[in-house]
């Protein structure tokens, strides 16, 4: 990693899906960099590999998918780790804590059998137990001063258990106590504390009446409300990176605007970097700092949002921008179809749909190179000199 500002660096990522139809070469040498505190848009058509790229950065690739090679370096507190070489056990501590994710269908992303509070609490318990124990101890000490008699004795026992949890969480007696029915209920204090955190969290996300929403089930929430709950869940541990996988696609336009503003606002408040996956160029122009355009498993162009929209270089980006419907104008679409990724074209994967294709495009795969300051493009048209 070259500089401190870099947060995540995906290098030469190859990913295949092994299906009955053959090997789908879903990612073909994807390289992407994200800087601290930026919103990076990841744009492309369905099936171009944008969701798979984002899932790879959490190293969640569901079989039959498999990462063939590549590196994903992440910079956590000044140290650089290769996510793909970390063990699964380590990854469970990274996911949700340092990298988290919000989804396209907010109501589907919430488990229907638990209340909103339960689900956010689960993330809390997993990653921030120490803080909950501290809060529970503080509360217990307050209660202890007021209580007397039998209650005081019970509180004292509870306090000693909590202190043990803080000092020696692996002790045998503690593990036994945590498994004993009825006695294990002393942990409810932590639930109460978690609930306080969650209500605060929901309040900061502009959710009206958070104390009531905490106890609601996902099906009782509107789409926008559910998306806020999912955002609460993903931000509960102040991650360094948030992956937003088309978070507004399934929402009404008005709600969409609210959620977009909320995401931008949260990004400023928590200094979280956001990888914003979408196919909506309007949303990209509105929210993102930089944009990566993907096509058939490759990054075609990577630039800051202004220069990408003002001066698109890659023929695919141009075609994509032209195909945005405008009132009064004829509807333009890109000729041809997205190639099958089982047998993609040799060379540039866009060559059979490209109006400017050269001979070289058919056989040689273009590399992603910097043609302008901070403007990368993978196209033979722009580095003929090299």
């Amino acid at each position, binding site marked *: 990693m070259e500089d401190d500002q870099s947060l995540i660096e995906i290098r030469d990522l190859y990913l295949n899906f092994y299906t009955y139809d053959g090997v789908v070469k879903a990612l073909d040498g994807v390289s992407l960099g994200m800087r601290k505190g930026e919103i990076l848009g990841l744009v492309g058509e369905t099936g171009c590999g944008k969701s798979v790229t984002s899932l790879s950065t959490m190293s969640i690739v569901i079989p039959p998918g498999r990462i063939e090679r590549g590196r994903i370096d992440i910079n956590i507190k000044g140290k650089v780790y290769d996510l793909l070489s970390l063990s699964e056990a380590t990854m469970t501590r990274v*996911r949700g804590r340092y990298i988290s994710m919000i989804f396209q*269908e907010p109501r589907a*992303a*919430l*488990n229907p059998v638990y*209340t909103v509070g339960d689900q956010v609490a689960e*993330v809390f318990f*997993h990653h921030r137990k120490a803080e909950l124990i501290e809060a529970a101890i503080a509360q217990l000490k307050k209660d202890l001063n007021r209580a007397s008699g039998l209650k005081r004795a019970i509180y004292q026992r509870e306090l000693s258990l909590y202190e043990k949890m803080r000092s020696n969480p692996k002790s045998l007696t503690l593990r036994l106590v945590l498994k004993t029915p009825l006695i294990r209920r002393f942990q409810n204090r932590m639930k109460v504390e978690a609930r306080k955190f969650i209500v605060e969290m929901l309040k900061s996300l502009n959710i009206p009446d958070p104390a009531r929403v905490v106890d609601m089930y996902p099906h009782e929430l509107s789409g926008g409300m559910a998306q806020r709950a999912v955002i609460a869940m993903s931000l509960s541990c102040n991650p360094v990176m948030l992956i937003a996988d088309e978070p507004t696609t399934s929402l009404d336009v008005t709600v969409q605007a609210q959620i977009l503003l909320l995401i931008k606002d949260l990004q400023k408040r928590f200094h979280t970097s956001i990888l914003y996956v979408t196919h909506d160029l309007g949303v990209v122009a509105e929210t993102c700092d930089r944009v990566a355009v993907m096509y058939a498993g490759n990054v075609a162009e990577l630039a800051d949002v202004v220069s990408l929209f003002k001066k698109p270089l890659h023929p695919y980006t141009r075609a994509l921008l032209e195909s945005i419907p405008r009132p009064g104008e004829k509807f333009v679409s890109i000729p041809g179809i997205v190639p099958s990724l089982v047998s993609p074209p040799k060379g540039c994967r866009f060559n059979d749909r490209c109006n400017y294709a050269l001979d070289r495009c058919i056989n040689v795969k273009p590399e992603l190179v910097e043609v302008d300051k901070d403007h990368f493009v993978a196209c033979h048209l722009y580095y003929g000199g090299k």
Partner: protein
Amino acid sequence: MQPSVKEFKFMLTRVLKSPLSVAGLILISYNVILAVFAPFIAPNTTGAALPDPYMIPRDPAAGIWMQPNSPTPGHLFGTTSLQVDLFYGCVWGTRFAFQLGLEVIVTTLTVGLVLGMLAGYYGGFIDEVIMRFTDIILAFPGLILAMVFVAVLSRSGWSTLNAAILSIILIGWPGYTRLIRGEVLRVRGEDYVEAARASGASDIRIMTRHILPNSIYSVIIVASLDFGSIVLTAAALSFLGLGSPPGYADWGRLIFDGVPYAGSGFAYWWTFIYPGIFIVLFTLGWNLLGDALRDVLDPLSRRK
């Protein structure tokens, strides 16, 4: 109010709304009462020592006549061959049915849950091995396979009763495994499972906290229906003489004991009608309860 209390209240009002569910609850409670209070409802009045309360005590005074005797105040439901008291048999038979059902359901459900979960969640080779094995068992007709198991097991020193229970378990688990695997496959692809993984949950946590609660409903419903049909299978085995020994408080056995006299039409009606009614009420109760459970547990059909 505690959420669990609230939930329970909701379920209760939901069940009480449907008359069939109420009927199911009443039938099951009636059977539970019979089973729990069997020693008081049908005490051993003969004075003979009873090493096993399920062995129906025989009145020494009644002799060992083969011919069944019609109902009298002393023997409310009459006696079947060898003067075995049917009332005692039917009442204690309820207790036996519960014991049998619980043993079988708990074992098959545990095995089915673990195997089905592993097969559905991990897929690939594990799935292949587990599911092909269940296919092999499911390829045989259940009752015939059970009979083979009983025959083999009882030859190798098992009592026929234990052999019957074990064989019902052996033919029962593949159904659950297949059912649970299907449910797990459905739930595994849901967004909230991915969301849970994205928030750092481990495999075991995802399985127990996220997949299990969402895939258990149909299994619970099937299990409650099976509770009734297990008793039917056991009765069928006993009826074929492969289950409990003669004079055992098992409905199937009692009917089997009356078979020689069924040739004379309804002359000895009590020997099969009374145990038959008990079987019907028990099975019907569980079937109705299964439907009631579906109403309250299925997340799609509830809250409507």
